[in-house]
């Protein structure tokens, strides 16, 4: 078969698949601009003609969106920052050193990820409440970091192992301290890996919903997923106002989409080395 033709056909196929894959996202954004009265018809509206922003106005009307946004941003930043630092240090330890207990640590890291979280809620509540950290950024962040750190260690381990020690040593011969060599030579090479694990931590912290439900009981401390679910539930007591619900969903998704588009390039190259060494 003609190779160029094959490539053309496959490219067309790729674009069709891409459209399918993006459809739910398109649907969410498109519906969020359509007046509810039109959405209530039995015939779906595929394009937002006569668009309106009133759904957005309705979704943020009571102001609770902004407090939830603030909470989500605070928690997510905390988790991403600490996760990257902690995981990076641990990854250096397990990929640069061979020591007693290393293997047990690696396996423990793997097994921690397998714990079903649904049985842990009561204990987590008791623990966080006993130190007066319910409804606080810190309380929920500690649980999140503990849940996310194992996988980020896992991701970073491959990157650190991939940076040749010889390079560092060469730099040290040139008079840099070990730390200096590390910062100048190794760290930049790790950047994509740090981005990739940061993205992972970001997604987990931004999206998490069940732990937040338990550890952030008061309305004032809601995160965005809780806010969205509350919004959907409140809407369901009437006939679901899909326009507003879609607007609310879009509001929760937009920060993540922006973040993804910013780090996109680095993310793919990050996964490249991470995946291969993983």
């Amino acid at each position, binding site marked *: 078969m003609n190779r160029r033709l094959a490539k053309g056909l496959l490219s067309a196929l790729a674009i069709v698949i891409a459209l399918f894959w993006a459809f739910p996202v398109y649907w969410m954004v498109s519906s969020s601009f359509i007046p509810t*009265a039109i959405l209530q018809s039995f*015939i779906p509206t595929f394009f937002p003609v006569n668009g309106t922003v009133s759904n957005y106005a309705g979704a943020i009307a009571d102001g609770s969106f902004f407090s939830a946004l603030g909470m989500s941003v605070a928690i997510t930043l905390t988790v991403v920052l600490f996760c990257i630092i902690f995981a990076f240090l641990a990854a250096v330890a397990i990929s640069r050193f061979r020591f007693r207990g290393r293997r047990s640590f690696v396996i423990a890291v793997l097994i921690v990820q397998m714990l079903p979280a649904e049985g842990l*809620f009561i204990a987590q509540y008791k623990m966080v409440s006993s130190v007066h950290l319910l409804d606080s950024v810190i309380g929920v962040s500690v649980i999140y970091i503990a849940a996310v750190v194992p996988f980020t260690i896992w991701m970073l381990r491959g990157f650190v192992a991939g940076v040749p020690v010889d390079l560092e040593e060469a730099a040290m011969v040139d008079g840099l301290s070990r730390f200096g060599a590390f910062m100048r030579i190794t760290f930049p090479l790790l950047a994509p890996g740090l981005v990739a694990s940061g993205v992972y931590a970001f997604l987990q912290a931004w999206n998490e919903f069940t732990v937040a439900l338990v550890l952030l009981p008061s309305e004032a401390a809601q995160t965005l997923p809780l806010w969205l679910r509350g919004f959907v539930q409140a809407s369901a007591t009437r006939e679901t106002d899909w326009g507003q619900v879609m607007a609310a969903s879009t509001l929760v998704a937009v920060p993540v989409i922006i973040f993804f588009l910013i780090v996109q390039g680095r993310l793919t190259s990050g996964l490249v080395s991470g995946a291969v060494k993983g």
Partner: protein
Amino acid sequence: MKRKIGLLAAATAAVVVLAGCSTPAPADESADGQNITLWLMGGDTPDTLRDFLKTEYADATGGTLTIEQQDWSDALSKLTTALPDTENTPDVTEIGNTWSPTFTTVGAFSDISDMYDEVGGDKLLPSFVEVGAVDGANYALPYYFGSRYIFMRKDVWAAAGLEVPTTLAQFNEGAAKLKTDTQSGFYIGGEDWRNGISWVFANGGELAKKDGDTWTSTLSDPRTVEGLTQLQTLYTESSLAPVTEADSTPWVNLNNNAATGAPEAATIIAPGWAHWSIGDLTPDPKDDTKTVATWNDAIFGNFVLPGVDGGAAPVFAGGSNIAVSAASKNQAGSRELMKIIFSEEYQNLLGANGLGPANLDYVSSLGDDQFATALSESAANSKLTPAAPGWAAVEGSGLLEEFFGKVNGGGDIPALAKEYDAKIDELING
């Protein structure tokens, strides 16, 4: 230091719980300046009532009342985690009437027997008082009552030449006749046990009975089975609702559909306040992308579900209880709030907003329109679920949704009843 405080708090909590709830608030404790939190379930309590409580509480104590609304679907898990926790417990909480026995028996609430007479005593709705009492002591009191009755499309019933039914059999037949390919004669979700048990109660059946100290599930009782059989027939012959639907928003089916201009149901059963959502749909003057419903007597009607021999069938009593958390550090302020809730003014406000006041002296505040009449008539004969210690667990486990779904899905009722009796028996005694 932090840790010490934590331990201290835990110890205090334990003392409060263990000392049981027979100790009234210490006499030297004053409500002055106590800031307290009230949990309300769902959005049933309108804003005017919430504002009233906040203002009155501030006037009475100088403290702040914070009202937090909990969603019914998360309420059980939130109560379970927060109520034992001195630091985070709501001071006063609304609680589903059917959950009251579960939480009162484990000591979650303060004994408020000493103020029982002051807040209304014998005038308070007896069946709700009963589910909130243990060994003659009062822990949870009624907050408001609601009830379920039938909403109908007069036009659809009249077009088929049918009168408002006066017995349950007539109702079942009429509902079956009105079913078409696109319209339920009577719209009821397959898993909607809260409405479905009306047919069980109407036929003299019960969900469980108490023998000595032990509760036993009685789904296999012949009268219960009879009610379930009627419900199964009704479901298959008159309802187009999904078998997985519980009591969500049946009223939307009674209004004309925007696309077809016709209703999807000729009849529904719903809590009384559903009438605010039923009627002719017109664009909302405040926001023309939304619609509002205006009740139209020519097209819509309501009546009380008739009993087997006429009269009102016993339906499931809606509404909730209210109680002071035993772990609360603000017992005095909490009791102050209870007094405000049971005051004549607040009771009348409940009634004016279509919620049945806990104190039956003020039932007249509901007014005398057709909805108030239907509410009182159906409530008078309404029943509660079993006051068993494990009842909240039975509800929480989803067994009832599961059982009713299977019955309405066309399952063999005696066999299913036997199976679920066994499952419920495991939980019902706590």
